[in-house]
C-alpha cells in the first residue's frame, strides 16, 4: 500500500497485515529451526547470527555515517575478552558481563572516534587498521589475557541452568541478534539515525542545521563498537575458547566485505551480506547444493542463488 494515512506509518516497522504475517512466520521459523536442523547447521546459524550483529553495527558506521573502519576485529576481541574476564575474574553473571563488555568496546570506539574527527577515507582506514592490529598484539603479549595461548571461555548460565549445547546457545544468540537488528532499524528511523545519515551526505549542511559533528561522529563509532563488542562476547561462548589469532586483520576485512556486499546503508542488506562465501559459509553452500541434487525439493529455487553466491 502506498497510501499513507498518518505519520506513524512513516516509521512503523510493519504497516500491513501481510508484513505482520511474514514477520510472525520469520519468528516462528527462527524458533522451529534448531529443532529440525542438524547440529552443524545450528552451529552455522549461531556463527552467522553473530556476524549479523557485527555487520549491522559496522553498517551504522560505514553505511550510514560514512566513516570507514578496518579495525572492527579489535572491538570484537575487546568484547570477547571483556566478557570472559568479567565472568572469570569478577564472577559476574554472563548477561551483565556481556553488556559491560559491550560498553567497554563502545568506550574504545569513542576513543577511536576522536582521531576520526580529523581523518577521512583512506587515512581513517589506516588509523582504524592500526587500532585493530594493536589490540591483538596487546592481548597476545599480556599474560592477563592468556597471551598467545588464549583462554577458555566459561559457559553462560542462568543460575544452575547452563547453556552448553549449540541449540541452547542458538536461542541466546539469535534473540540478542534479533533485538539488536530491530534497535538499529529503529535508531535509523529517528533523530539520531537521521543525524548520522546527514553527516554522511553533507557534513557542512548537517553542521549548519545544528548537528553536533563531534558528538555524532564519535557516537557512531561508539554504537558500532558496542555491537561488535556484544557479538564478540557471544563469539567467546560459541567457540568456548578464544585466542588472539581468532581476531586477526582478515576478520576486519570480512566484516567490511559483508557490509559492502549486503549494501551500504541497509539493515536488511547487513543480514543478507553475511552470505559472502568464506570457508565456513562455503561449506554450507556446498551441502545445500548437495542436498538439492539429492532431494525432491526442486521447486525451491535455492540452487541458482547459492551457486552464484559461491562464484562471487
Amino acid at each position, binding site marked *: 500500500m502506498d497510501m499513507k494515512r498518518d505519520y*506513524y506509518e512513516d516509521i512503523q516497522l510493519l504497516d500491513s497485515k501481510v508484513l505482520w504475517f511474514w514477520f510472525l512466520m520469520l519468528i516462528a521459523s527462527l524458533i522451529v529451526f534448531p529443532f529440525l536442523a542438524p547440529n552443524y547447521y545450528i552451529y552455522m546459524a549461531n556463527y552467522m547470527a553473530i556476524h549479523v550483529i557485527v555487520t549491522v553495527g559496522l553498517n551504522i558506521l560505514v553505511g550510514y555515517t560514512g566513516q570507514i573502519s578496518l579495525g572492527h576485529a579489535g572491538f570484537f576481541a575487546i568484547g570477547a575478552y571483556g566478557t570472559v574476564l568479567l565472568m572469570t575474574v569478577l564472577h559476574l553473571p554472563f548477561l551483565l558481563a556481556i553488556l559491560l563488555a559491550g560498553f567497554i568496546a563502545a568506550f574504545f570506539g569513542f576513543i577511536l572516534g576522536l582521531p576520526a574527527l580529523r581523518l577521512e577515507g583512506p587515512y581513517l582506514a589506516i588509523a582504524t587498521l592500526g587500532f585493530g592490529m594493536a589490540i591483538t598484539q596487546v592481548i597476545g603479549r599480556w599474560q592477563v589475557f592468556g597471551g598467545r595461548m588464549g583462554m577458555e571461555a566459561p559457559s553462560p548460565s542462568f543460575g544452575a541452568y547452563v547453556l552448553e549445547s549449540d541449540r541452547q546457545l542458538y536461542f541466546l544468540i539469535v534473540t540478542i541478534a534479533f533485538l539488536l537488528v530491530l534497535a538499529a532499524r529503529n535508531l535509523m528511523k529517528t533523530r539520531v539515525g*537521521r*543525524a548520522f545519515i546527514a553527516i554522511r551526505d*553533507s557534513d557542512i549542511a*548537517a*553542521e*549548519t542545521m545544528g548537528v553536533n559533528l563531534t558528538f555524532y561522529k564519535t557516537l557512531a563509532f561508539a554504537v558500532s563498537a558496542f555491537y561488535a563488542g556484544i557479538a564478540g562476547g557471544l563469539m567467546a561462548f560459541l567457540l568456548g575458547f578464544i585466542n588472539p589469532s581468532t581476531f586477526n586483520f582478515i576478520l576486519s576485512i570480512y566484516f567490511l566485505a559483508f557490509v559492502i556486499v549486503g549494501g551500504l546503508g541497509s539493515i536488511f542488506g547487513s543480514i543478507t551480506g553475511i552470505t559472502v562465501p568464506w570457508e565456513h559459509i562455503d561449506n554450507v553452500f556446498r551441502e545445500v547444493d548437495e542436498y538439492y541434487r539429492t532431494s525432491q525439493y526442486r521447486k525451491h529455487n535455492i540452487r541458482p542463488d547459492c551457486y552464484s553466491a559461491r562464484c562471487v
Partner: protein
Amino acid sequence: MTNDNFFSIHNLSISFGGLMAVDNVSFDVLPGSIFSIIGPNGAGKTTIFNCINGLYSPDSGKIIFQGKNIIGLKPHKIAQKGIARTFQNIELFSRMTTMENLMLGRHIHMKTGIWTGSTFYRRGSRAAQEEIKHRERVEEIIDLLDLQVARNQFVGGLPYGTQKLIELGRALALEPQLLLLDEPSAGMNSEEKQDLIFWIKDIQDELGVTILLIEHDMKLIMDISDRILAINFGKPITEGTPAEIQKHPEVLKAYLGEDEVIGHAA
C-alpha cells in the same frame, strides 16, 4: 523601532593567505527586514555567510546576534541560536527523502536520544510521538512551498529548482530568526523565480523571519530588499535602499556594468 542588537557585523575581516577575502565590512540588519548583499563573483559574499555560520573564523571583527558576539562558536551552536542558511551549491542530504531532509531541520527541536530512539515499539512510545509531532510541523512547510509531490522521493534525483526549494524548506524547519539565503534563485526559470519572490515575502511577513540574501538576479533583489550592501573585492562600496544602490556610480561601475541592466531592473 531601531534595534541594533538584533544582528550586526562590525569591521569583519578575513584573509586566505595574502588574499583579503572580506575587508572591514560592517552592516546592521533590522529585525524583520530583508537585507541583500550584492557584488561580482569572488567579492566575498559567501565568505561573509560562512563567517556568520561559524564555518570560517574571521581574523578580526565582531558578529553580534541578539546582543551577543557569536564569533568563535561552533556551527551547530550558532544554528541552535536560530540562524539557518541555504547554500549556493546545493548541500542536501541526497540519499534522504524530502521529508527526512526537512525532519533533519527539526533536529535542534527534538530530543530523542539513542536509547528512546532505538527502543520505540508502538505509536505511544516517546520517540514515535515526537516523530509524529514534528512531521506535522514539516508538513506545514511542505504545504507552504508546494513540495507535496516530492515528499517521499529521494532528493538526489529531483529537479534543480525543487532541490533549491527543499533547501529553503529545511532551513525553515529550523524555525530560524535569521535566515541566510545564498543565491536562492540560481538555476531557476523565471516562473520559479516569481514564486520564490512570493515565498520570500511570505517568510518575511508571516513568519517574521529576518532574511539576509545573496543574489545575482537584480530584478529579484530590487523587488524585495529593504536595504542592500554592495561589495567588491571584499571591500564595501556602499549601502542603501534599492533606489540608492541603482544610482550609485561605483556600483554601476563595479557590478552592474551597463545601463541596460539597470533599465531592465527598474
